[in-house]
């Protein structure tokens, strides 16, 4: 027998009473070798920050291993590597900052290899279902050029998936709608 899924509902309002936890923004330990900060802001279609937004990220470690049940690639040797981060405090400015390492390349469909990327779920009050996007890295031009997923994204929108280098990390803003709308995926 095949069952139907339970439908999604909005995360808001006031998810901050239940969802955040102290180590949430740390996909790796703060002092892990190669730790970087990825900062950004979630904007709505009017260009206004979305203060009641929540983002979650999931990624491989620097060697392309996942800290999950599949044990893909073997146990991560990264210091305190979890690969998952959750950011969102409903505290007013719609910004997030997570601490992680740049992931390694991992296999894609068929014989392809994927460029370093981080999967992202975006939730907010006013969103009845999550939106899924990916963070790629602007300074990985060669790997990005061969990425099988980026190849399917309209060329004039790929820029929205590229985190831009900053001091100590990267910046990745998310535009739910409007000019520069972030590419979201059908998963």
């Amino acid at each position, binding site marked *: 027998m*095949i*069952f*139907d*899924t*339970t*439908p*999604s*509902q*909005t*995360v808001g*309002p*006031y998810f901050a*009473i*239940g*969802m955040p936890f102290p180590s949430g923004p740390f996909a790796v330990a703060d002092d892990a070798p190669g730790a970087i900060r990825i900062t950004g802001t979630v904007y*709505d279609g009017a260009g*206004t920050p979305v203060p009641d937004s929540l983002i979650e990220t*999931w*990624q*491989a470690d620097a060697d392309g291993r*996942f*800290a*999950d*049940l*599949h*044990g*893909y690639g073997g146990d991560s040797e990264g210091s305190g590597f979890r690969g*998952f981060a959750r950011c969102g405090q*409903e505290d007013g400015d719609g910004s997030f900052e997570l601490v992680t390492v740049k992931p390694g390349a*991992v296999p*894609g*469909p*068929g014989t392809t290899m*994927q460029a370093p*990327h981080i*999967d992202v*779920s975006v*939730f*907010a*009050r*006013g*969103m*009845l279902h*999550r*939106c899924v996007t*990916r963070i790629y890295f602007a300074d990985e031009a060669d790997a990005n050029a061969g990425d*099988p*997923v980026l190849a*399917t*994204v309209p060329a004039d929108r790929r820029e929205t998936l590229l985190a831009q280098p900053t001091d100590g990390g990267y910046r990745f803003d998310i535009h*739910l*709608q*409007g000019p520069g*709308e*972030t*590419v*979201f*995926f*059908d*998963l």
Partner: protein
Amino acid sequence: MTTSEERTIYDPVSETPTSYKREPAGAHPPMDYEGYKSTALRHPKQPLVYLPQTITEITGPQLGGLAGESDNDLTVQHEGLPIGERIIVSGRVFDTEGKPLRSTLVEIWQANAGGRYRHKWDRWPADLDPNFSGAGRCVTDDDGRYTFTTIKPGPYPWGNHYNAWRPAHVHFSLLGRAFAQRLVTQMYFPGDPLFPYDPIFNSVRDEKARERLISRFSIHDTIPNWALAYEFDIYLRGPGQTPFEEAH
């Protein structure tokens, strides 16, 4: 005894699917729903891009350690008992094949008995309850079962339209066992008179799908002289047919 088909769709090491079934249109609410005004500026207008399910999507974090031993009892987090009707909320988490999902993190949060959330932005003039924070966590057992003890939340007004009230609800977050299996939803109580008027509940357009958001009263799980029980089973996406999907 495992059939070859089961071996194909569930990874032998992780016992999780090697791909997830694409969900039919209407399985979830539309991102742009006129009745719920806040969706207007918060939904993508560009078409979604098809994402093949790669290793990144079929894997997921293991966060069971987040749930402390008594985190599933929202009535014992403070010195005194919270005000309101103590209830048990329990159920099982399955995938759409009916396979129980064990070791899955379940997180809940909710308003108190007066419909007030413990959040600085909630200005609804119902008192905060010093004995109720309104958040809990637990991990499903080998049968996919979770159990919470909490207080029945109250309905509360909101600004979506004139005389708008949310039916009583408990927010649920399920991590699932893969990035592709993530779900955030809300659980409602049977027979709520506010159902016809709530655009969030009614954003799920299919009546049968809406019913899956409503818990059932359970005399079986009700604890004599202690707490009424509500049962809420949750179904997350199940496996697709092939180990890895090709991009197309």
